[in-house]
């Protein structure tokens, strides 16, 4: 395998890894928002009583 092919391979792996970091990071952030909202919903319903 020549040097250019090795660098291409590294770039391709990095591109796929970066993609999954972005996508899963965003999903995790949405999950965090969901949990925070659940807490807020509980607070609102408690203060209503």
């Amino acid at each position, binding site marked *: 395998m020549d040097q250019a092919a090795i660098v291409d391979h590294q770039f391709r792996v990095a591109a796929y890894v970066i993609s999954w970091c972005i996508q899963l990071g965003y999903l995790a952030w*949405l999950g965090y928002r969901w949990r925070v*909202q659940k807490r807020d919903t509980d607070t609102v319903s408690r203060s*209503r009583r």
Partner: protein
Amino acid sequence: MKKAGFGLYAGLTLLMMAWGYYQAIYVAPTDAMQGEIFRIIFYHVPLFICAFLFFAISFSGSVGFLSFRHSRPEWAQIADAWALAGAEVGVVCCTNALILGSMWGRRAWGIWWTWDARLTTTLVLWLIYMSYLLMRRFAAGTQVQTLAAVLGIFGALDVPIVYMSNRWWRTQHPAPVFGGASGSGMDRSMAIPFVWNVFAWLAWGILLLAVRYLVERRQQRIAAAEAEQALAGHAVR
């Protein structure tokens, strides 16, 4: 039942993503001209397809909000939630695709970025939707949703310009692979893995869109309950 359906869809999506990865790495042959870096296409193009689709959803939601904001406030809130979800997931996909494009460009052209027609119009699209999200995040007041809807509509007008840019102006970015001039296209051995990845990324994007929509609808309900509570407290005093 809803949770089970959601779990099933999420599981199927992950299976499709795994299958798409297998197709992209092990089934599609290495490109004779570009070598392995070509495999970025299996993520780069589907991500842009997702971004364009979600910006179209944002556009529809924005139009819906402006149409219903006086006559049917509840419908308007639903439309606004779709508009925001579409814009945000679209920006995530667009950001990801721009980064991949830059990495591909570094290997194929020797540069990370150039002010080519396709790249520049895409950057403008990204900036418009980033400003949309920043406005939604930081601006306050009763007119924010209306202003955001107007911006969302104008932002979506850039999508056809981005799509047509490498047909109208021949600069650095390659000519369209699909739907381009005669002789364009992809060999069947690459096209099948490509189509699998498009479906997989669409399924993933729709999953993100649905979650973001539910988060926004919940946020609207919390805001409405808080406003109601504040008004009730004010009335008691």
